């Protein structure tokens, strides 16, 4: 993944040399290059494919509103993954999601099964809800790091996306994993007390 996309034409913008056709094709190229990973981050976070697609479109829409100068001089991929992580976490933090995930994760077993279907699916959904609750409570940068690494991003890609030195990625991943485990354990303890 390029750290900075080398564009010779404005992608979206008000520059006097703006040409509609050039801008569209450049934006399309960015979209096609990064869409899979953006959507993967959002699906992991919100769990709902339709909602993740809607959020992904909003993220790309926000990108399209950056100035041409910004797009030429900044790390577009890094911006997209950060924006996707924040959008997913914001969606999780909305009242409806918090009640659905935290309370369902903490109280589900005590109040009896609300879900039907194969036991494996039920357990999987319960575990996914718990993991999402942990991710949305973490710093977005740490959540982003774990999600991107989980989806196969290399250290170089992680360094570019988070705009850190590649030599520090190992340390940051270690910290993020420790934080995840700490919060996961706390959530599990809370569930046991209920």
């Amino acid at each position, binding site marked *: 993944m390029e750290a900075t996309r080398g564009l010779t034409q404005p992608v979206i913008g008000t520059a006097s040399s703006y040409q509609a056709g050039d801008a569209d094709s450049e934006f399309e190229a960015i979209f096609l290059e990064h869409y899979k990973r953006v959507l993967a981050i959002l699906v992991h976070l919100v769990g709902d494919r339709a909602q993740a697609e809607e959020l*992904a479109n909003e993220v790309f829409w926000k990108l399209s509103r950056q100035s041409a100068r*910004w797009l030429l001089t900044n790390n577009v991929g890094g911006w997209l993954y*950060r924006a996707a992580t*924040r959008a997913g976490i914001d969606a999780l933090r909305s009242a409806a999601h918090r009640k659905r995930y935290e309370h369902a994760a903490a109280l589900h077993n005590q109040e009896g099964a609300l879900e039907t279907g194969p036991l494996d699916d039920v357990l999987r959904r319960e575990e996914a809800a718990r993991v999402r609750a942990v991710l949305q409570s973490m710093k977005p940068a740490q959540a982003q790091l774990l999600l991107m690494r989980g989806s196969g991003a290399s250290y170089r890609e992680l360094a570019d996306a988070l705009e850190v030195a590649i030599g520090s990625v190992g*340390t940051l991943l270690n910290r993020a994993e420790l934080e995840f485990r700490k919060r996961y354990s706390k959530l599990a303890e809370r569930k046991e007390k209920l």
Partner: protein
Amino acid sequence: MSCLTDDLLHTRMDGELGAADSHEVDQHLRCCADCHARWSKLAEQTAQVRASLDQLAPQGEAAAIDPALAYSRYRQEYGGRLQAYPQWLNRIAAWKRPLWSGVAVACAIVLVLSFAPGRSWAQKILAMLRVQKVAVVPVDVSALTAGSRGNARENLIAQFISDNVVVTLDPGKPSPAPDAAAASAMAGFPVRTLDELGSPQRILVSGEGAFHMTLDRDRMQAVLDQTGRSDIQIPAAVDGSTVAVHIPKLVRSMYGSCPEKGDQPPTRESGGAVPGLPAGNCIDFIQVPSPIVSVPPSLNLSALAEAGLQVAGMSAAEAQAFCRTVDWSSTLVIPIPERDSSHRTVNVEGVNGTLIEASPHGNFSGLYTLIWVKNGIIYSLGGNGSASRALAAVQSLN
């Protein structure tokens, strides 16, 4: 080889070390019990986290992603809006449309941070703030733009701001109003006119806008470090705080010979002295009810504003002294370039207004802005030429 750091172990575990380094690590692990124990513990930690995250992966057909199909759907939904991004959002994201470009970056940091909890709110989390007065602080904007790193610095700060801004309410394009009465009905508050200047050439009403930003202390500190200001420390308590801004509908009345092109300000081509700024005898009169700014009561805005002012060029002592003089409960603080402008207090309708005038020999020579707050409405009168025309005109406010 001395004992291995967790960083190195993790990098080796992830297969991200080169062949030679990997071999060296493997050799060490064979003969160091302590490192081997830590390796095992790290492996267990990583495996548990990965297993948890794997629960989130979509299953079966849901896992298939077709970017080309997705783009086609995106164009159907957003295609008409691809080239119509709102100007006011561009100001926030890029901060390229201020009165003085160097000021905008400092403004972005200080403006949002210039409020302090004025009263508690039922939410128990956020304090709602409203502007009652304006204060101006001269800053040395060359600190932001000087040297070869100037542009990179400005981009970094703008990027920090833009990355963290989430727009929750898009005002859309301004709507024209035939007269002040119609504008009042559209905006929801009484729109005033400057009778001495005659009928406005145009009146535009902008929709409501809202955005929030979550403060990431590590990222803010990284911006300071990368701009050579690691001496300025962002308070740790800032981390994770959310600042939300709601901007009510805004009315813009243009008097005199103003450009006809939509909501774009006059340009050099239309006779303006500087692109994007008022030209000729055009006077821009803006009215907007106070934005509502929500911040956590625990957020130490004074400390944060001190950091922002230092980035904008003040010394630590100057920033601290200034912050003590500001009534943080209700003041909108506007930084202006100290070398390219002057300001003074003037009486407008019985309240203190601030008149900011560009220096005669600067890049924005001839420009002025008069700002005041009355009854919860922020007024701004801007033009090119003598400010005495504006001062006379405000006497005729209805």
